């Protein structure tokens, strides 16, 4: 890992993540206060990395943007923003407008808060977030938008509904499987009898988001993303939160559901009944694969390369449920020391007893060096215990690695350039089956 650069970053800037997040909120319109190129840069990025999903109701090149230039850099951009917000309210049809700032206005010191306040005091449904690109990456931008929602959109509630929960931790477009992944978790929570606000699915509404303050629990299916918003919601709305790994497949999902039930004091039988039924379905469905699983020798050594959510979640599924051998796990996010610790300890005690090997490396080209530490290249001798048959579960940037190793490959974590994803998801019990299908299909594609 270099201290001076990041190779082919697998995320955008805070503004990019924030813009994508706002696009995913039902009826919301982002307003960028930035230079003209940012919106297009995000559109092209999604085009190449988000499994062919670009924009939505209002995203990509449709996004209103103040497009500030040298004039504003010299004289300040507040006036221009004021004008842009006023005109946006006339031209664009939205239920919520979210002003997001880019690098340029933040460095020159524009005061977006007061501009936004002017409009909201006149009754416009508008909020703002400071998301300058130098503040962090797109996952942080995602968090900042959620924080803004809890600050300025979610109503304070005097009552707590014991069966209501909010769910987040999966960044729209940053996780190409965001819709399916949110829905997969949501479905299981509903099986527990809970009412779920998950912000971004087709079943969510802005009203639901406004009422999120009465939830009994905030469930963040990430050990890193969205925790700022969880802390803010705890402080402002008194809602406790549970940060859990992204649950993929039966083992992780059962643990996830038990943790939620425990935290909410849900009576035992319901959760165990749900788990039992889902498990039984899962294995009945898996059963007919077993002959070919054996006949075709489908067990693989694996390298997992993913963001802070996927690195652990995929490793866990491969080790605990699929019975593969994830010998190396690479988390490509640049994380703080304690975030890294959290991920490491989350993988230290796998249900299967498999010993995971997690490293932090932002640069794809360096993954092979990490592998070679444990699995040296062949020595040319007749007998050599090589890293084979192998499979790389990562992003589309791992295709070269897979080729070098003669390994199979599936893109799951951003960027996913070579798959089309609409609402496919890997979370929950069924998600484990989807992932199994996709992994095995890619192995047998030439059959």
């Amino acid at each position, binding site marked *: 890992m*270099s*201290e*001076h*650069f*990041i*190779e*082919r*970053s697998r*995320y*955008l*800037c*805070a*503004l990019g993540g924030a813009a994508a997040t706002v696009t995913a909120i039902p009826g919301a319109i982002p307003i*960028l206060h*930035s*230079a*003209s*190129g*940012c*919106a*297009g*840069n995000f559109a*092209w*990025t999604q*085009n*190449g*990395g988000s499994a062919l999903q*670009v*924009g939505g*109701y*209002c995203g*990509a*090149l*449709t*996004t*209103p*943007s*103040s497009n500030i*230039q040298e004039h*504003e*850099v010299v004289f300040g951009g507040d006036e221009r923003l004021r*004008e842009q917000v006023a005109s946006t309210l*006339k*031209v*664009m*049809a*939205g239920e919520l407008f979210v002003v997001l700032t*880019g*690098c*340029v206005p933040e*460095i*020159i010191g524009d005061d977006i808060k007061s501009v936004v306040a002017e409009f909201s005091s006149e009754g416009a449904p508008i909020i703002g977030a400071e998301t300058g*690109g*130098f*503040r962090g990456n797109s996952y942080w931008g995602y968090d900042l938008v959620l924080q803004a929602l809890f600050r300025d959109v979610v109503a304070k509630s005097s009552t707590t509904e014991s069966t209501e929960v909010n769910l987040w931790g999966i960044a729209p477009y940053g996780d190409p499987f965001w819709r399916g992944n949110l829905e997969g978790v949501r479905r299981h929570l509903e099986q527990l009898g809970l009412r779920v606000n998950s912000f971004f699915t087709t079943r969510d509404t802005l009203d639901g988001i406004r009422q999120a303050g009465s939830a009994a629990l905030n469930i963040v299916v990430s050990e890193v993303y969205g925790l700022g918003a969880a802390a803010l919601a705890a402080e402002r709305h008194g809602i406790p939160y549970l940060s859990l790994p992204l649950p993929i497949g039966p083992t992780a999902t059962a643990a996830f559901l038990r943790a939620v039930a425990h935290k909410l004091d849900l009576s035992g039988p319901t959760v165990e009944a749900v788990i039992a039924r889902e498990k039984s379905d899962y294995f009945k469905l898996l059963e007919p694969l077993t002959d070919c699983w054996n006949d075709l020798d489908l067990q693989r050594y694996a390298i997992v390369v993913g963001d802070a959510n996927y690195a652990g979640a995929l490793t866990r599924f491969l080790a605990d449920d699929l019975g593969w051998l994830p010998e190396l796990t690479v988390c490509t996010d640049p994380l703080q020391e304690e975030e890294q610790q959290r991920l490491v300890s989350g993988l230290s005690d796998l249900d299967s007893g498999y010993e995971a090997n997690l490293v932090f490396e932002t640069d794809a*080209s360096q993954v092979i060096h990490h592998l070679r530490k444990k699995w040296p290249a062949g020595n040319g001798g007749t007998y050599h215990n090589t890293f084979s048959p192998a499979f790389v579960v990562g992003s589309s*940037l791992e295709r*070269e690695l897979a080729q070098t190793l003669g390994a199979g490959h599936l893109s799951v974590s951003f*960027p996913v*350039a070579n798959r089309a994803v609409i609402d496919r998801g890997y979370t929950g019990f069924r998600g484990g089956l989807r992932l199994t299908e996709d992994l095995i299909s890619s192995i047998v594609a030439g059959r």
Partner: protein
Amino acid sequence: MSYIDLKSAPKREDRLKACIAHGGSVCDLGGKGKKSCLVDDGERGFTQGSICLLLPALAMLNTLPDNVVLMHSAIGCGTCTHSQNANVRFGGNVRWGKVKDGTWLSTALNETDVISGGDAKLEQAIIEADKRYQPFSISVVSGCVPGIIGDDIDTVVKQVQPLVNAKLLPVHCEGFKTKIWATAYDAVYHSIGRTLLESTTSEKGAGEGGDAGLAPYQGLERLPRTVNLMNVSSMGRIDELELTRLLTGLGLAVNVFPVFAHPEGMVTATQAALSISTCPTHDDYFLTYLEERFGVPYLLKHMPIGIENTGLWLRDVARHFGAEEQGEEIIRREEAELHAALAEFRPLFTGKTVFVSAGEFRALATARLLEELGFRVVGIRSFHHDAFAEGEYEKLAASAVEDYPIDIANVQPFEEVNLLKRVKPDLFLGHANGNATAAKLGIPTHVIYNTGLAYIGYRGAYDLARRLARQRKNPSYNRRLAENLRLPYTDDWYQSPPFSYINTRGGVTA
């Protein structure tokens, strides 16, 4: 002093008086009483996000083999490369049978860097990149942030160059500094010229050509039958091959430049007998330079999109080499064959209306081609406007049955949606990420630029016709979208005149 002697290329609004905000009509811009918006470019009071020069610049730089792109900016700038990488992979494969990802890096300037400056970080990044990847060259590309905090990539490059093996190409892409993203081509060409084509030892910078300054780089030979075919990434390999086929028909050897050209071999461009542009919007800056510095004359008038335009383009080249008859023979033969082949499509297109949107020259040339195929043009959006396009507007004004709107806009789909609701075309052709609005209105759509598809020359005309016939045959995808989705605009907006926001910025009314 020429532009090339400056640190960075001037922006096009200064150099060419190019503009991006005008609502007019084809008779306005190309007719008798034509008026140009070059003098009084207005600003919009409402704008949508667009691209900046960084994006097309990276589209070029990422294709260069053995070159590493090092972005110097916040982490988001340049992530567009994720989509451009598809072109890098595909383009490498069709040219060399090898699929390889581009290599792009970012110094990812953070809050601390914004306060204390990023020069030192950049310096270390260059040194480390040189060591790790051992590339022939490293393009050091600056985005908005260094432009504001006062980082000086040129000085850093100068200081670090002696410490590294890679040639360092500083490229200025501070997005806020120009609204004309076509400045990107100048920025990249500028750096190629200064770094790869100018002698680093000679103060004059004109190589060993000496005072005459009109010989190829450092005493290399002139190649009397070699032409530079300029491609800044707006053509895919299939289009390059089509033009190469036509040029070899005239007995010429073709040097495609600069995309996918190895930086080490770029000096060949100074040896050519002629440079041929495929789009004046792209190449004027560099071709003037090649002529001034190395005595390579150039052609910069026509874009070989469309039947007539391809003929005009080829004729100019033939004339330059005294091969008029050969040229005429090729054109006659190609046109006869093409017209016969197009016959089956014509009835499907005749009288159907079309709206076209793209970079100015491409939009206009494609509009002419669509007319040749039988369509009636009812609206055009050009991403910017400059004087190079005037001839094209004249051609279109002459062939227009009725006047129609021309929207000079750096995309701005709100104007487009308003226009489309009025003119209701039977077909829409838009740029990458620019077809969704028309699609959601249920209009059959087709992409006007994609490096995997043919657009150029005679082959391009035929292939485009085939694809349009296909789109028109079953536009159900778009029709169903329109039945079930709504666009994010207010009803009020649809009732307002489409150009209501032009010239309104800062409270000025038109």
